[in-house]
């Protein structure tokens, strides 16, 4: 268990050792040694900040290629809701889906449909349950991992439903099996992902044993091919699609809007999320009902594996999710109540596993020894210049002192020593 830890990956050949990523990482997971950046994998929450700031594009994400489709008899693509924001608001998404199919998929299932279903579920859970407040959204896996690592006292506040991606995967697989009689292992379900965090939550999910998804393909890796194929599309089907509410989940605040709570806080950007989680831990936001925290600026439209500029994508999503005059798509899954009941009853939605805190910041399991190590850190820190210059390859003087005590670095790494 737990071998696969994160999906952000570094291309050593491209890395110039500039330390941009190291300074930006919110969990101090990056060190630069011998002019190359390294990620301490247990600490990485896959927020993608390092991918965004890397000037030489050395930071990337582990994703799958279309070759993996060959392993299955029937393949379904689940485009992340942000895909809506990667095309102009006038584009017929049905045509986009046809383009996706021409890349080798047998069907396409909109993640936004699951967002619609989840809106109903979460709304009910908030109404009926005596959950600890504020209830924290489980949507962004980078934020979930951040909570595990740095805010584990808030684990009980996380709403115990799966993400829209996972729910969509389960429904899509289930429908294909019922409709065509395939076995589970014959159906391949692939997420078109805007971020590495989602990739990790497929390979190493939180809250459930195994993901129903079989792989993830980065949106920016297949966008060009989709556009190319769209030119050759001859006939266009009408696909089941999300409502404007579901589409709205691609930008920050969309979830909160769709579950219709008055007292919510919706925050984007990992640093901002950290600040709000600090406040929640201090009990300062007990009056807030729902907290929607998304690691990327703008929400998933700001995911590092998208193509469109996050602000433009956000405005496209806003248009699609608020425009009453647009043709309103309603999938039968969403509108027919018995369908919703079916997917609720069959545990398509709820978590089955507890989330455990990750004590990766702990200096030693024995508190006595941990105290001694902490004292040593303070001693070393007294002796370092306190400039946080980063030349030693650690993001701060404190981080270097910590590395020394953990046995990963030497005080001599400091250029002032």
């Amino acid at each position, binding site marked *: 268990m737990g071998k696969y830890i994160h999906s952000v990956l570094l291309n050593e050949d491209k890395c110039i050792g500039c330390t941009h990523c190291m300074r930006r990482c919110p969990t101090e997971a990056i060190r630069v040694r011998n002019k190359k950046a390294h990620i301490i994998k247990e600490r990485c929450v896959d927020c993608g900040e390092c991918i965004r700031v890397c000037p030489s594009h050395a930071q990337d994400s582990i994703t799958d290629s279309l070759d993996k489709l060959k392993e299955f008899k029937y393949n379904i693509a689940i485009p992340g809701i942000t895909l809506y924001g990667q095309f102009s608001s006038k584009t017929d998404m049905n045509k986009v889906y046809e383009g996706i199919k021409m890349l080798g998929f047998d069907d396409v299932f909109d993640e936004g449909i699951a967002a619609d279903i989840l809106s109903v579920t979460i709304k009910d859970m908030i109404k009926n349950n005596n959950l600890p407040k504020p209830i924290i959204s489980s949507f962004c896996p980078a934020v979930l991992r951040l909570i595990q690592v*740095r*805010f*584990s*006292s808030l*684990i009980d506040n996380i709403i115990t439903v799966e993400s829209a991606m996972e729910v969509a995967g389960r429904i899509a697989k289930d429908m294909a099996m019922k409709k065509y009689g395939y076995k589970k292992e014959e159906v391949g379900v692939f997420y078109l992902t805007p971020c590495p965090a989602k990739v990790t939550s497929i390979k190493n999910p939180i809250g459930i044993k195994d993901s129903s998804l079989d792989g993830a393909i980065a949106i920016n890796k297949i966008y060009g091919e989709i556009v190319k194929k769209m030119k050759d599309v001859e006939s266009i089907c009408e696909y089941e699609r999300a409502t404007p509410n579901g589409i709205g989940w691609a930008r920050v605040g969309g979830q909160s809007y769709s579950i219709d709570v008055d007292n919510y806080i919706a925050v984007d950007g990992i640093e901002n999320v950290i600040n709000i989680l*600090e406040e929640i*831990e*201090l*009990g*300062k936001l007990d009056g807030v009902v729902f907290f929607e925290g998304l690691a990327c600026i703008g929400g998933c439209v700001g995911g590092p594996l998208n193509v469109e500029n996050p602000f433009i994508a956000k405005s496209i999503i806003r248009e699609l999710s608020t425009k009453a005059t647009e043709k309103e798509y309603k999938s039968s899954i969403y509108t027919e109540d018995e369908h919703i009941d079916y997917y609720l009853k069959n545990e398509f939605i709820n978590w089955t596993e507890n989330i455990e*805190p990750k*004590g990766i*910041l*702990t*200096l*030693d*399991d024995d*508190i*006595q020894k*941990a*105290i*001694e*190590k*902490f*004292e040593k*850190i303070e001693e070393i820190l007294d002796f370092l210049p306190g400039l946080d210059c980063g030349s030693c390859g650690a993001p701060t003087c404190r981080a270097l002192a*910590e590395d020394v005590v953990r046995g990963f670095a030497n005080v001599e790494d400091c250029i002032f020593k």
Partner: protein
Amino acid sequence: MSHSLIKLEYEILENDFSRAGEASSNMKKMLTHLGINSKIIRKAAIVTYEAEMNIVIHSKGGKIFVTVSPECIEIVAKDKGPGIKDLDLAMQEGYSTAPNDVRELGFGAGMGLPNMRKFCDDFEILSSEGNETCVNMKIYLK
């Protein structure tokens, strides 16, 4: 019994809202490094934060001393006055003398002291009009 102790000291300035919360968040990081249970850390952070804010809002400044041993977290908040006239009243939920401008910042619910008492295992407050206020709190780890 052990000899290992961590002692930290934080200077808290009167009316300094910009740095308010630094002591508690710094302490929280330290406790995380020690691998202390997150629920306990949360309690310690809440009581420290409340003590910190009371010094910022109601006093002429002071200090917070944190001592951690394998058995216990001890937090002492000590200020330079002006002290509390009626301690029983101050300890009541909802009692507050916070001025309006401070209430607009979200403080002044009169819940700070009651919450400190609620979240720690031992709570002691010493104060009288014209003197310093000293709050002594302990949270046991075992």
